[in-house]
């Protein structure tokens, strides 16, 4: 019984947090509930990880929830980044309220929805069958739709609409894939009797995958990868990401970019396990390689002449997702370990960047790269965090993204994807150059003569006070964690290894 409670904790605690926020509203006491719930999810993730490495995968709640090394690792990722995001949101909300862009009611809605968001993601990771994962991911879309459209400005409504429509269509395709997979598994097995137990259950599917009918499975897997690819920001249906992340409030976009994309990618990895068993590695490798290249090309083209730094960060998330797809295409155990490390590293780095960009938006009032000048002289700590985050992003040594990027490159070459990897790293180079020049233009250089930053008409008073402690701490913690990961994996080593063996082909 205690184990099922432990399994349910990551979902229930944030849900309870959401309820308390709803009931008590946004006050000094309730402000820190978010952090507590996130910390609880992280703790549960760690315990579950330790549990699964000892005893192997466990199911509970009548087979609905299942945790193994991979989902435990994802739980840790969710926990870590939601701790960062929720820790920064009280400071962020307080500044928004003083700036008059938000009031207590919207703050309450904000904390409630964030908690629900974390709960939905935890459910998606712990779900045992494809259907529940689909429902959880669709739930995240709907919850974040309200968060994106929170500010009721023209841009927010437009972003919200695009976000919901494109994501729902993508997810519908994924559901079509799920249906076809269910159909294939219904007629799988020697005499076409269908697989035992719940037909969409990951474990059952993975076990019986070799007997699935290749024709149907091909279509199902393709649709699933494109469907979940939409939520992960991969090529065909990626265009919602810059708008949504550009308009969403900073903590939410940190969560979305850091974790939601990776949760969708987690689903793709699960599908890949089944596809490899049923169709052999070649199919998913070519599909993912094509998608990865297309994604990187789009990200590179749009980053070169980018004018808005929040959209710049969003496009760099698309780029990193493309890299993950490349790693998944390589498929070997080394590649998958690198991919998972990249997920965590990118999550941390991107969360720090979005939180600091939110802060920059509050300070300068504008999200245009052109209008932000000499930030380093006016806000040294903030500019420092933002600069270090960007350096981590483009993969400079101390940070873990270098190690994982290196791993992906090596795996790519080893698995015979030589040319694809070379081309994609040329794109990465172009992107690194573009991002560096944009950030350089923002941070360095003399501050504008009139010290009062150009205020965007929509945001009335631009707040000019220094970064509050509660705002700065998560940034620094995130950066140090990312750097520490780059140097030694420590306890994560074993977990990463076992998760990679689960997903990677030998």
């Amino acid at each position, binding site marked *: 019984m205690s184990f099922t409670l432990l399994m349910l904790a990551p979902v229930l605690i944030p849900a309870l947090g959401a309820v308390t926020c709803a009931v008590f509203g946004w006050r000094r006491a309730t402000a820190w509930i978010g952090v507590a719930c996130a910390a609880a999810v992280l703790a549960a993730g760690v315990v579950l990880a330790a549990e699964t490495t000892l005893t192997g995968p466990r199911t509970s709640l009548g087979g609905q929830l299942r945790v193994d090394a991979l989902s435990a690792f994802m739980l840790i990722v969710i926990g870590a980044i939601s701790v960062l995001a929720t820790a920064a949101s009280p400071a962020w909300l307080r500044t928004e309220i003083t700036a008059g862009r938000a009031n207590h009611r919207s703050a309450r809605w904000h904390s409630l929805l964030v908690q629900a968001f974390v709960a939905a993601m935890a459910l998606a990771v712990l779900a045992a069958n494809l259907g529940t994962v689909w429902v959880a991911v669709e739930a995240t879309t709907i919850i974040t739709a309200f968060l994106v459209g929170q500010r009721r400005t023209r841009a927010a409504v437009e972003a919200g609409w695009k976000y919901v*429509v494109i994501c729902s269509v993508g997810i519908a395709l994924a559901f079509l894939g799920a249906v076809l997979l269910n159909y294939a598994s219904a007629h799988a097995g020697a005499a076409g009797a269908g697989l035992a137990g719940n037909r969409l259950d990951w474990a059952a599917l993975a076990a019986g995958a070799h007997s699935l009918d290749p024709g149907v499975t091909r279509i199902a897997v393709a649709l699933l990868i494109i469907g979940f690819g939409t939520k992960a920001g991969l090529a065909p249906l990626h265009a919602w990401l*810059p708008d949504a992340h550009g308009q969403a409030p900073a903590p939410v976009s940190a969560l979305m970019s850091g974790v939601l994309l990776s949760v969708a990618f987690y689903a793709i990895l699960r599908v890949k396990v089944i596809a490899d068993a049923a169709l052999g590695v070649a199919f998913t490798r070519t599909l993912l390689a094509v998608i990865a290249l297309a994604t990187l090309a789009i990200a*590179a*083209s749009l980053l070169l002449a980018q004018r808005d730094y929040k959209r710049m960060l969003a496009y760099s998330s698309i780029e990193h997702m493309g890299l993950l797809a490349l790693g998944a295409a390589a498929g070997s155990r080394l590649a998958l370990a690198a991919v998972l490390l990249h997920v965590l590293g990118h999550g941390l780095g991107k969360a720090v960047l979005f939180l600091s960009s939110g802060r920059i938006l509050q300070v300068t009032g504008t999200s245009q790269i052109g209008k932000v000048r000499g930030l380093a002289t006016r806000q040294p700590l903030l500019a420092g965090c933002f600069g270090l985050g960007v350096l981590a992003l483009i993969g400079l040594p101390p940070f873990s993204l270098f190690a994982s990027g290196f791993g992906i*490159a090596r795996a790519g070459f080893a698995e015979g994807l030589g040319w694809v990897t070379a081309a994609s790293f040329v794109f990465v180079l172009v992107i690194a*150059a573009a991002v560096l020049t944009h950030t350089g233009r923002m941070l360095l250089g003399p501050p504008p003569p009139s010290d009062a930053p150009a205020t965007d008409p929509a945001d009335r008073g631009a707040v000019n006070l220094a970064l509050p402690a509660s705002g700065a701490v998560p940034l620094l913690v995130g950066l140090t964690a990312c750097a520490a990961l780059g140097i030694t994996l420590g306890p994560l080593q074993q977990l990463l290894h076992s998760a990679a063996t689960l997903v990677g082909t030998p």
Partner: protein
Amino acid sequence: MTHFGVVAIVIGLMLFIAHASSDTFASLRQAGAELSPAVRSTIFLAVLVGFASKAGAVPLHAWLPRAHPEAPSQVSALMSAAMVNLGVYGIVRVGFDLLGGGPRWWWLLVLVVGAVSAVYGILQAAMTSDLKRLLGYSTTENLGLVLIGVGAAGVFASAGAHVLAGLALTAALLHVINHAAFKTLLFLSAGSVLHATGLRDLDGLGGLRARMPVTTGLFAVGALAASALPLGNAFVSEWLLLQSLVHGLPVSGVATAITMPAAVAVVALTAGLAVATFVKAFGIGFLARPRSSAAERATESPVSMRVGMGLAALACVALAVVPAMVMPGLARAAGAADSMLGEPAVRGAVTLRLAGFAGSLSPLLVTAALLVGVAAVVAGLRLATVRRTRHGRLTHRARPTRRDARLWDCGAGPLTARMEYTATSFAEPLQRVFDDVLEPEQDVDVTHLQESRYLVDSIEYRRRVPDRIERRLYQPLLAFARAWGQAGRQLATGSVHRYLGYGFYAVAGLLVVLAVTR
């Protein structure tokens, strides 16, 4: 630029490691043996591009003349003396050691890149009037010479003449050490000049000999070394390089028959221009009269700086006079690179004798003879003039000091500092000779008075020698990137329909593909 280099190296090495089991040098070495020629060539080219950018070879040299003037002089000394050599180390290690030589066209490419870097670097150095930018470009030139040596060694090794390859490689490595010594000295002295006068522009300096005697002396040693003249240490390595090129002709193949004389011509032209450049740098920079008030007020830099420079100067002199002391070390290094090399290529302590070829030079004797000669002449001169005066007819005692006379000014009154030749005017004949290579830009804009077009208010004349490769290679590249960016932005025009359209066509296409390729 460096990021581009890093990516190139990573791709090259990745490709290499992918084929070898692990990434230790040993496993790479035997993996290198049985790789297919196409893969070996791609690996070599990727690594070459990467390390050439690190060494500041021409197409990828733009960062060098920009980074060095900005960096504090000790850092740029370090960069020029140590960091760029990593590029050479990389090429030699991967090219010779891991891939075991490889076909001849690789090394002809390295030789050509070296030659172009050498000539282009020294031409730009001759033209610029910024001291540290001049030294930056001269680093490109010296690295070009080293690459010529490495390329020549490769060509000889691939043609089987391993003794000659050893000689060329020893010459290249010796030049690396020499360059490290004199470039450090030059940068440090440039730093002390900057410290004293706050100026880097040669046109503003001048007359520092009287105000900063120690720095002037040390810079003179460095300049002498850099211009590869007999007393300097670069002369020895350049002599070795020329010897290896000269003896390279009998090596088989028409390609070498053409490249060897061309390489000798390039080395000669580079040496000639280097002489001109450093005469300009030393003469205009330190001699004659100060051309700006800052140079006027210059005072000698603190002792700590002078000690640093002194050490570097000592190294230069030691290398110039007794190069034999580093020979064994170089022979072992060359042996490590190309395993077929037996004994050291150069023997002899006082007189360097080439192993296997008739050619010898004794820097020690030459230097000693010169110094003795100068002393003898000065003494002889004093003796001659003194004896004359005691002859009896001139009773007064010979004046001990030499009388201070006015400079010849065609009777037009005292010469001002403005009448002196400046760095730009010094380089003007050279620039006119090479103007089709350098394509100097000059623009004249005349501001007329409002009242009438005939009365001129002021004329502004600007003449600039742009870095032609930058203009030809980087501008189009940046323009392409901007155009790609603009075009890329059309991808996201904001309309929902377009975004959904991407998805629709992708899914429909994929389904059709799946249906067709069952």
